[in-house]
Each structure stands twice: as structure tokens, then as C-alpha cells.
């Protein structure tokens, strides 16, 4: 029985720099012993953990190990092209699969902080400065997600995420949290 390669990537609220990969392949292929994960940004760069000298992260021990956690691999939100390869012991690629993801945990966490702020001070929802910018932040995140999920357009998505990141970085000027 051949292998039907598949995987997912996810993030957990509160851990914005971390990505969890899960191998969801079905079937078997005794020749496969290891995997590699390439995470390519819209700019063409590969995201790897600090200290990694290759363009990929190694994900060994197939099929026993089904999860790979890359802690603090992200420093902001990214739209990425993820290529996972399944290889034999000699390093020959036997299978591969490409998926596009928008990792938005930084800006989503920030958006939730704003929600907590407004929950603590409900009058803020009527503050055009606060609400208008929170709405814009949401629009950037949603637009980026749409670009990735509908068209695999990491360039447009990254632009949206960066605009959201810019709002997050300049939040003291955009969100009147003292009113």
C-alpha cells in the first residue's frame, strides 16, 4: 500500500511564534524514514529555527513521530508556502506536498487584547479612533487570510499582514485605550 502524504500546520493563541506541524498521511511506505519541512515566505526566504544551517527543518522518525513543534520560528505574521517532503534513508524525496498558510497569531492575539480592552471599558466601542482602527486591523487580517486561502497569493497576503503588523507596532498612536 502506498503512502498518501498529507500534513497540517496550526498555531495556538498565546504562542504566536510557534507552529505545530502534524503528519496526517494515510497508508504505508516502509521506504520512508524521514521528512523535511520548507517554510518559504512571500519574499522567497526560508524560515528556520535559530541555529539551523539548512533551508528546511528536519522531521525524522517516520512514521512514529507525527508532530513537529517549531518554537519561536516566527517573529511576526507571515503568509508562507510550506513544502513537506517524505524521504527514504538515502535522502531521496519519495513524496511531497505543498500547502499555503497564513500564520496570523501575532495580530490575532493583539486583536484579542483590544477586545479585552474594550470589554473592560465598553465606551471605547463608540470611540471612532479606537473602533475604526480595530475594524481596519480586522480587515487586514481577514483580507490576508482570503488571499492565502482563496488564491494562494502569499505576496498580497503578506502585504495585508504587514499593514496589520504596522498597526500593532504603532498601537499607542492608533488605539486610544485611555479614553
Amino acid at each position: 500500500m502506498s503512502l498518501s502524504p498529507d500534513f497540517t500546520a496550526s498555531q495556538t493563541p498565546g504562542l504566536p511564534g510557534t507552529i505545530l506541524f502534524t503528519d496526517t498521511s494515510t497508508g504505508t511506505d516502509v521506504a520512508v524514514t524521514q521528512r523535511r519541512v520548507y517554510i518559504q515566505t512571500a519574499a522567497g526566504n526560508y524560515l528556520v529555527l535559530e541555529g539551523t544551517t539548512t533551508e528546511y527543518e528536519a522531521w525524522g522518525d517516520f512514521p512514529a513521530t507525527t508532530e513537529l513543534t517549531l518554537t519561536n520560528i516566527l517573529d511576526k505574521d507571515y503568509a508562507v508556502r510550506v513544502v513537506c517532503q517524505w524521504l527514504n534513508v538515502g535522502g531521496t524525496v519519495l513524496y511531497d506536498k505543498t500547502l499555503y498558510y497564513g500564520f496570523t497569531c501575532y495580530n490575532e492575539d493583539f486583536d484579542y487584547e483590544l477586545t479585552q480592552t474594550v470589554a473592560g471599558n465598553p465606551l471605547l466601542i463608540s470611540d471612532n479612533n479606537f473602533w475604526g482602527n480595530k475594524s481596519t486591523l480586522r480587515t487586514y487580517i481577514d483580507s490576508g487570510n482570503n488571499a492565502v486561502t482563496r488564491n494562494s497569493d502569499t505576496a498580497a497576503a503578506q502585504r495585508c499582514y504587514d499593514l496589520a503588523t504596522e498597526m500593532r507596532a504603532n498601537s499607542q498612536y492608533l488605539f486610544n485605550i485611555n479614553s
Partner: protein
Amino acid sequence: MPSTATIISIYPVAQYLAALDIQKRGLYGGGVDIELPQKIRNIGLSVERVYNGNPTDTSITATANYLYALMGKYGLQAMQIPSSTGYVADITPVRQLPVPYDFIVTPTSVIPEGGSSVILSAFIGCNVEFTRNNITQTTTNPGDGGSYYYWNSATSQFICYPNATLGESFRITPYF
């Protein structure tokens, strides 16, 4: 106060209820904040995401309650919808009986002169009653050379015995 799970499940409904109400109220939403649907969605999405990440996290109760307060009467309406609507029962289509064949035997009729067998595909699944020259026929061979008929409801093959003769009156009536 509803649970966080309930609040998260009703906020999309409250959002469209608010949007509809604002639209019906006309100019300036009749005093209702015309951005309320967007606000409900905005706050709802961020609460929902954290809840989905960890449903047991009780720290989101405060923000969920704020979302509930923001929904206001639309939240109350939204909670009533699942309990008052029930479900739509399946509709069983009414099966129409096909139109009977009623004809005088000619060289070109459904069963032509000298013929006996015909496929009546419109009658598949039905029983048929065969009247020949205004006399109801049976499917039992009388054995004396008298007339009778054969009907297969699965294949819709109809055979009359003896063969049709010119000018005979035939009526083949389907029924369930």
C-alpha cells in the same frame, strides 16, 4: 448569563438579525448603531478564536459576556431561534398515476393489428387493469382459448392473448 459556548454559537445569528433590523428601520438605522453588525462580528471572531484554542480557558468569560451585552436584544432573539424553529420535515413527493392507454386497434395503435406485446415503460411499478371490448380481463389463462393478459410491473411488458384484431377496443389502466 449564557455560557461562553452559547454566546459564541449565537453571535453570527445576532449579527444578521441586527443587520436586518437596521435595514428595516430605514434612515440612520432608526437609532440603532449602523455599525453594530460589524462590531458583533469583530468582537465575536476574536473571542471565538481564543475559545476554539482552549475551550476550558475561563479567562475569556469576561470578553464573552461583553460580546453578549453588545448583542443586546439581538442576542436574546438569536437564542430563541434554535428553540422555536424545530426542523423542516422531509417532503415525500406525491407519485402521479400515469395516464391510461385507451385506444381502438389499428395498424398503428399502441398494440397494432395482429400484435400482442408492448413495453409500457410509463407503467413501471404499477399494476394494470386491462379491459378488452369493454370486458375486464384477467391474468389467468382460461384454457379454452379465451382472452387474458400478462403484465410484468418490473419490466413493464404487457402481452394480450389472443393477438389484437382490427377494431377492438382496448383500455389499459394503471393503478398502485
